[in-house]
């Protein structure tokens, strides 16, 4: 005896849509990182141009969510799910913007041979992309264990960001001539760290959706005090 088929259908639809946004954003981040690593200006431009698509998807999905709230007035798990989708939608759009930021740095660095190989981001980029992917898997599979893994991984990325800060600091002191490139590279590190933060937000929202418990801010407990910048 299945009632409320309308809202079931609507929710399946929203779930599919948020995954589409997630896929496009993941790809954008992947390309941005690749354009940075390979100093590929064309690929960087591709990322910058595709942001419009993400923005459009975000607005469309938000409107769908608002419509579902207004028309079906969902409660309990249905309410938590739609609210979670709205919040994740927001985080993903920001990750899209950060990918554009990374691509813009890649574009600059591609025109500046000097900066090549100054810093290695591959580890940090890999870690960050994994966090984002895992947070989306946690959403799809309604898996809180995965979500908690993402939250815990965030401190590792924070640590990498601080390391790069210190490295850049030393390099500027050693060779002030590179300061412009190094500032761009420092920004990249900062952007990646922000991506990891959004992945963490997504993981926290997934936990809220499943358990009805807001774990945001409690997540601070996962980090040891010496990890705070």
């Amino acid at each position, binding site marked *: 005896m299945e009632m*409320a088929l309308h*809202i079931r259908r609507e929710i399946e639809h929203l779930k599919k849509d948020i995954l589409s946004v997630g896929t496009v954003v993941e790809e954008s981040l992947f390309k941005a990182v690749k354009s940075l690593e390979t100093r590929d200006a064309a690929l960087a431009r591709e990322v910058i141009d595709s942001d419009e698509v993400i923005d459009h998807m975000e607005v469309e999905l938000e409107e769908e969510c608002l419509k579902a709230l207004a028309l079906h007035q969902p*409660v*309990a798990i249905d309410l938590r799910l739609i609210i979670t989708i709205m919040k994740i939608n927001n985080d993903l759009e920001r990750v899209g913007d950060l990918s554009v930021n990374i691509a813009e740095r890649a574009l600059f660095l591609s025109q500046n041979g000097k900066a090549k190989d100054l810093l290695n981001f591959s580890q940090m980029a890999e870690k960050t992309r994994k966090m984002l992917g895992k947070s989306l898997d946690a959403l799809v599979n309604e898996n809180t264990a995965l979500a908690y893994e993402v939250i815990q991984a965030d401190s590792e990325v924070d640590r990498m960001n601080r390391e790069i800060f210190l490295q850049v600091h030393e390099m500027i002191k050693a060779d002030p001539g590179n300061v412009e490139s190094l500032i761009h590279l420092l920004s990249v590190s900062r952007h990646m760290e922000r991506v990891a933060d959004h992945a963490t937000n997504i993981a926290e929202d997934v936990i809220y959706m499943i358990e*009805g418990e807001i774990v945001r801010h409690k997540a601070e407990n996962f980090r040891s005090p010496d990890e705070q910048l």
Partner: protein
Amino acid sequence: MVEYPGKKDLIAAEGFSVFYGSNEAVKKVTLEIPEGLVTSIIGPSGCGKSTFLRAVNRMNDLIPRCRTEGALRLDGQDLNAQGVDVVMLRKSVGMVFQKPNPFPKSIFDNIAFGPRIHGVRDRSKLAVIVEKSLTQAALWDEVKDRLGDNALGLSGGQQQRLCIARAIAVKPSVLLMDEPASALDPASTSRIEDLIAELRGKYTILIVTHNMQQAARVSDLTAFFYEGNLIEFGETGGIFTKPREKRTEDYITGRFG
């Protein structure tokens, strides 16, 4: 159980059951309803919610072969104990039904009916009660110039507010409402809901509704009944965002019922 600091429990059920013949319609329900708040009872048809509501002013007495077990207390007094004066009970526990049921009399006489039964004869005293009750029921301004008109000439929504005014004219402590807005249009429904918010604090209100959004809007506490059992009872905000019981969640999200 729900704790409301500073609120005493006015209605208390303890292992309370209601039987229709051999059918146990309400099964050993234990719950405490605090004074001055709005409590809604939700659940699918046949879950025992209306039976429970009617037990509070012993309306079930009218049904043959209906009997109760356990205790249902109002302000500490067992309602089913021997010697309980049902007329006095219904004075302190007013009831409003699904369909407005004004008497085929004038607006004034509808409201004055209860006070008259309870011995108020003085016309000016009755006039004060009528005005006060109609004002509290948010109907006074609409009818003050035609108190002598037949109440049946009012709109459905006005008739329902008249019935609420009639119920509060005898100064009850509890107001029972059985689907009070289900026969009304959206505008009249929202006036009834506004009225419930106005009456909150002055009366302990118990409302049975099929409209879950209405329960969510008007009540402080929500009880979910299923197959005669009380499944969950708690603050309305909690029930509608994060119910503790799977059956509550399935019901309020429309997965069954």
